[in-house]
């Protein structure tokens, strides 16, 4: 089993670093290009959601002091990603599917990130315990 962990600042400018970290780790672990692309994008979306939604209404000082911890784990043909944060509880399971008509009418903006995560990963889960949010993404590798 392989495990790596890294902390990122709560800032959209960190997203390229999240992607680089996930991409280089999975590449070193020999994950295929297509699976790697799916996991990188799902991690980008999950981290983006945490920064924009879990920390959206949170004050600047706390955003600067908190971090997002990202753990990558590979066991046989499964990659597990766990993102931990202490922002406001944000349950992705409650996000409705995107509705193009509402988006085009300007009545809704988004919903695509969670839809992408659900489509690209084998399973996504969310837990909130003692003020800590955990977003868990599972991917069964195709090869």
């Amino acid at each position, binding site marked *: 089993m392989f495990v790596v962990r890294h902390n990122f600042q709560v800032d*959209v*400018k*960190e*997203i*390229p670093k999240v*992607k680089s970290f996930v991409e280089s780790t999975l590449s070193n672990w020999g994950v295929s290009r297509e699976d790697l*692309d799916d996991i990188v*994008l799902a991690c*980008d*979306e999950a981290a*983006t959601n945490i*920064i*924009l939604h879990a920390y959206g209404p949170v004050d600047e000082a706390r955003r600067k002091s908190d971090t997002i911890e990202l753990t990558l784990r590979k066991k046989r043909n499964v990659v597990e990603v766990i993102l931990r944060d202490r922002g406001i509880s944000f349950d992705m399971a409650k996000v409705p599917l*995107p509705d*193009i008509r509402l*988006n*085009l*009418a*300007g009545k809704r*903006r*988004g919903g*695509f*990130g969670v*839809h*992408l995560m659900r*489509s*690209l990963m084998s399973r996504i889960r969310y837990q909130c315990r003692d003020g800590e949010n955990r977003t868990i993404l599972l991917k069964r590798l195709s090869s």
Partner: protein
Amino acid sequence: MEHVKLKNLSAGKAVAALSGRLDVSVSGEVEEKLMDAIEKENISHLILNMENVEYMSSSGFRVAIALLRRLKDKNGSLKICCVRPAVKRIFDVIELTSLFEIYNSEEEAVKTLPT
């Protein structure tokens, strides 16, 4: 790194060449620049050339939808061309392929613009 280069074709028509990795850290800047150009240069028909876009997250798709909405409000159009296979796959996953007019080359997209 500059992620948008705008090329005016003729009155009200332009091509925006996008490049790089379009995630949340750059999508705001891309949207602002293109929305600004649509207003200031009175663009109604815009082609997004994505030949040099290596990666696009949902933030990039939100920009494309916002542009489509703005241009439709002006009775114009948004066309997309030269999408790399890895990005096209995400268009398909997110089920947005039918929403946009997508062309294989910039030349093909330009030919469909009103004269």
